[in-house]
């Protein structure tokens, strides 16, 4: 690892909302930024937001955002002295951190050794085993053992179990297995997905806990040796192991449990010589016992809910730590305030098997007002493609109480318009109304048993709305032709005259 030093120019090796997020933090610290982009992202917000931008290659990640060589070359070309990897892509590849450091540049993240220990879930279990952190029963899996060997390992762990990518995260390379017959196919598919997503097909088995809650603890560790926890995030609202809604504090975590989990998280971080921001994930069972799941050695998608409660900018802290500075707030984190919830707005048809939705965004309308934070990368005319993950916007609501935060998030979702694609907003709204969510008594299966979309009502509004929309379509002669160019007043006038004046 190179010695800490001042960062003057930061290359952000990512795209989407997290690239925008990192650029924001850098600019607030007076650090110049360099964006990198694939051909699909030429006009993306992170390209426009950064001071400079360098093309990496064609749209597929393997030819752009996963190209370590091109990213290091872009750092050389622009004179960037540090790189922030965001999440996903190269963020947990120790080889990337090493390549950056070999070029004499700063990697904004943990030491490569800590990434290696924690990035692989198997070695992570080994790393924390000695530190008293409780572990879920599990077993490694040798590819060469073949189906028979896999089955033997599976029997040892017990059913139901999970096949998981060792290098994984975000639900990719993950399969739940209920019975022995499913083991071979699940292992093959998980390994194949893991190769595609992470370039590493190693998978392992882990006991599947019943009614588990997914609760994670945010840690910060600086170069001076301080290791601090900033409370927990409840991440049990998941579909296909992708988090959809996260909240802090967790409704299930008592002050005693929090203290124990924070201590375990700090112990795990110390066990691997951690530095920077990191997240220790736990499963909490129905009896409030917790088990170490993995450590994410990067900034997490859902980090804003911690930031809102603590008034701490975690990305700025990462940048401080990478420069050898101590944490901004001294020896103790600020007192957390209120309750925060994040919803991930994704381009997908949640009511039809969570199918991804693609298209061109129209005039997006994002919410605002008190206690609403928007982290997105959307803009009018943006093409939503299949190349990257389908997260468009993270909405965070912060309020004095959990009930107020839920009400605030609801109203913000009602304000949001992302025309041109189908989003999971209807599902999120129904989840916020789900009695299990409202009571706080839910586990990671909540979305599997989600209420279906409401049945058609006898409300006349849809009937009239459909007729008016068709009327407009079939009677174009009754309206003036849409003017060329941007004569929008005329277009608006058409809307008025065609559809009638005030009631």
């Amino acid at each position, binding site marked *: 690892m190179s010695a800490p030093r001042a960062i003057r120019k930061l290359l952000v090796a990512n795209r989407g909302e997290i690239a925008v997020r990192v650029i924001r933090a850098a600019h607030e610290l007076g650090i110049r930024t360099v964006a990198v982009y694939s051909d699909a992202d030429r006009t993306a917000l992170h390209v426009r937001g950064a001071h400079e931008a360098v093309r990496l290659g064609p749209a597929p990640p393997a030819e752009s955002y996963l190209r370590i060589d091109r990213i290091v070359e872009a750092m050389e070309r622009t004179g960037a002295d540090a790189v922030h990897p965001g999440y996903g892509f190269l963020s947990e590849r120790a080889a990337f951190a090493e390549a950056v450091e070999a070029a004499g540049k700063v990697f904004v993240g943990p030491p490569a050794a800590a990434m290696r220990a924690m990035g692989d879930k198997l070695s992570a279990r080994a790393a924390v085993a000695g530190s008293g952190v409780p572990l879920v029963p599990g077993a490694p899996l040798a590819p060469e053992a073949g189906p028979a060997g896999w089955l033997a390992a599976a029997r040892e762990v017990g059913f139901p179990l999970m096949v998981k990518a060792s290098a994984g995260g975000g639900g*990719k390379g993950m399969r739940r297995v209920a019975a022995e017959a499913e083991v071979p196919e699940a292992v093959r*598919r998980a390994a194949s*997905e893991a190769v*595609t*997503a992470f370039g590493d097909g190693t998978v392992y088995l882990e006991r599947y806990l019943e009614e588990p809650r997914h609760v994670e603890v945010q840690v910060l560790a600086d170069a001076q040796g301080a290791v601090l926890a900033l409370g927990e995030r409840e991440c049990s609202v998941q579909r*296909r192991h992708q988090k959809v809604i996260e909240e802090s504090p967790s409704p299930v975590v008592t002050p005693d449990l929090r203290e124990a989990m924070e201590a375990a998280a700090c112990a795990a971080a110390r066990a691997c010589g951690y530095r920077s921001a990191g997240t220790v994930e736990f499963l909490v069972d129905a009896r409030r016992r917790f088990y170490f799941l993995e450590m994410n050695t990067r900034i997490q998608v859902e980090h804003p809910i911690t930031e809102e409660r603590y008034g701490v900018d975690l990305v700025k802290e990462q940048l401080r730590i990478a420069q050898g500075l101590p944490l901004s707030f001294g020896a103790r984190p600020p007192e957390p305030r209120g309750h925060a919830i994040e919803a991930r707005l994704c381009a997908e048809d949640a*009511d*039809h*098997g969570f*199918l*991804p939705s*693609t298209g061109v965004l*129209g*005039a997006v309308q994002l919410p605002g007002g008190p206690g609403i934070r928007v982290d997105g990368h959307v803009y*009018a005319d943006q093409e939503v493609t*299949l190349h990257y*993950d389908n997260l468009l916007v993270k909405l965070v609501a912060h309020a004095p109480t959990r009930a107020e935060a839920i009400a605030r998030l609801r109203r913000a*979702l*009602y*304000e*949001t*318009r992302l*025309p*041109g694609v*189908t989003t999971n*907003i*209807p599902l999120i*709204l129904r989840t916020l109304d789900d009695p299990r969510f409202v009571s706080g008594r839910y586990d990671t299966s909540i979305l599997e048993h989600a209420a279906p*979309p*409401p*049945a*058609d*009502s*006898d409300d*006349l*509004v*849809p*009937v*009239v*709305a*459909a*007729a*008016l*929309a*068709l*009327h407009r379509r*079939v*009677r174009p002669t*009754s309206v003036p032709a849409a003017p060329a160019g941007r004569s*929008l007043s005329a*277009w608006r006038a*058409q*809307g*008025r*005259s*065609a*559809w*009638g*004046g005030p*009631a």
Partner: protein
Amino acid sequence: MSRGTRYFATYGGRERQVEILTRPDGRLEVRVDGAAHPVDVASVGPSGLLNLLMDGQSVTYAARFEDGAAVLSFHDREVRVGIEDERTRLARQATGKAKARGRGAEVTSVMPGVVKEVRVAPGDRVRDGQALLILEAMKMENEIRAPHDGVVSEVRVAPGEAVEKGARLVRLEPPPEDAG
């Protein structure tokens, strides 16, 4: 006021007649099954959104049309309303009912993606739920499964091929009578 344009809307299992009239002052009047409803509709912005004021509600929505239905996107849900104008209905009635469906069935892609792997070939017998092919979309691999027992009569895609939503992937014929 002269007779307006009539539409037939099917929603919530019930068909209603909607008549849209232009009043002498240029405003629209909407009648649902004969009952007048004061409405006001205005276009919002460049994305085709409409704002409808009706029955004490302010509702903003977008509409697209698919297979004789309007898919309406409200802020919190998508709703499907069968909709037909009078002329279309008369024309359809004159040419008889829609053609009966053929016996075979197409398995179509429910999402855009790239075909990663094809698991079946023409002539294969398949079971309800059996994986026919693997479609990769947004870095997730999705198994496309048989909607019912049958025999593959045609495979229309090959690995590596990019497909749109609704693309026909595999044609399934009903299974022979002796199939269990």
